């Protein structure tokens, strides 16, 4: 992939989308083969790579008893960022009104936005998203494209329309193997 490129990984259930994304996000290690990210061996240099990667798993992974702001402030601390960055990201994702509400009380869509905000706190160069659209409304989907900006984006989705909205190149997986690479424009 070239820097700034957007790729949408599509495929049926069990095709291997999540496994591929977990490998790209360095949360899983390959059993064989080699993965290079930013020119570095992803299996051996994860600590260097992770600050450059934003990862959103299929589940939001929030702390239900903490407020939206506290969730982000906690991760700001771990990233060594000023706490003010948390408020900025909440505003960016359109959830500033939920700042003081516990994450458990937010709707699934708002939780997803909060998780997206967390993945963007450290302004990653590579953004890896595992089916973020499953609970996002139309506005949230438009927001994804805007937030991707110049980042390299890899997104797993069942929704080819979302891939088109993002202008992403389609990569289709079947039983863990790449079977189709097409420009989304051709498919349209």
């Amino acid at each position: 992939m070239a820097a700034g490129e957007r790729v949408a990984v599509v495929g049926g259930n069990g095709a291997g989308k999540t496994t591929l994304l977990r490998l790209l996000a360095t949360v899983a290690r390959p059993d064989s083969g080699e993965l290079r990210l930013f020119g570095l061996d992803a299996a051996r240099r994860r600590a260097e790579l992770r600050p450059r990667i934003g990862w959103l798993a299929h589940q939001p992974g929030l702390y239900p008893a903490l407020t939206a702001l506290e969730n982000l402030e906690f991760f700001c601390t771990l990233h060594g960022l000023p706490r003010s960055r948390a408020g900025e990201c909440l505003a960016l994702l359109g959830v500033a009104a939920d700042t003081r509400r516990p994450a458990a009380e937010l709707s699934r869509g708002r939780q997803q936005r909060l998780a997206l905000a967390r993945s963007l706190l450290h302004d990653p160069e590579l953004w890896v998203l595992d089916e973020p659209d499953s609970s996002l409304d139309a506005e949230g989907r438009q927001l994804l494209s805007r937030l991707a900006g110049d980042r390299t984006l890899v997104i797993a989705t069942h929704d080819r329309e979302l891939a088109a909205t993002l202008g992403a190149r389609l990569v289709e997986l079947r039983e863990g193997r790449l079977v189709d690479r097409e420009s989304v424009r051709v498919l349209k």
Partner: protein
Amino acid sequence: MTFAACALAVARKDLVSEWRSREVLPALAQFVLLALVVTLFAFDLDSASAGRIAPGVVWLVVLFAGLVAFGRAFAAEKEQASLEALLMTPAGPVAVFAGKALAAAAILLACEAVLVPGVSVFLGVSLPAPAIAAIALATLGMAALGCLFSALAVQTRARELLLPVLALPLWIPFVVYGAAALTGRGPQALANLLALDILVVVVAGLAARFVLDE
């Protein structure tokens, strides 16, 4: 961001979450009191026998309360699917582990703050200062080992079974030295507990990287 700051942030997050959700602490406090009530009715206690039985009851309660407190440390992260997000930060797995062990130890210490006066009220036995110090020191080492095994156990299906099987045998030295603190060998037993704590914290810290992130 320093190691200590990251570990403290993780510990604070866990304690704030526990304070608001009240998931573990009330249940453990209730367990402590019930264990003392059961002891009161299960044994034919007089002032002499209560003094002999009380230390054993205390250690049994600490061990079983520890299994619950430390078991929840990583189980909650697993249920919330939040561990991956934690490990993706530059904080590193060892700082995350240290923070969670600190929070779990604090929760168990809070239970012990119910247990010690409870022993006095229900069994009529006042634990001496060396015994209280031994319980606190043992809690630190037990937290390091317990959270390490908790991190390991949450990756398996039978986590509720695995944690006691792994942790209880390795907690026995803490009970041995802790019990010795009551028998007139207090200073030596406390020194042994401190040495054991240092050893266990270092080993658990080294192993945490592999358990959490490999």
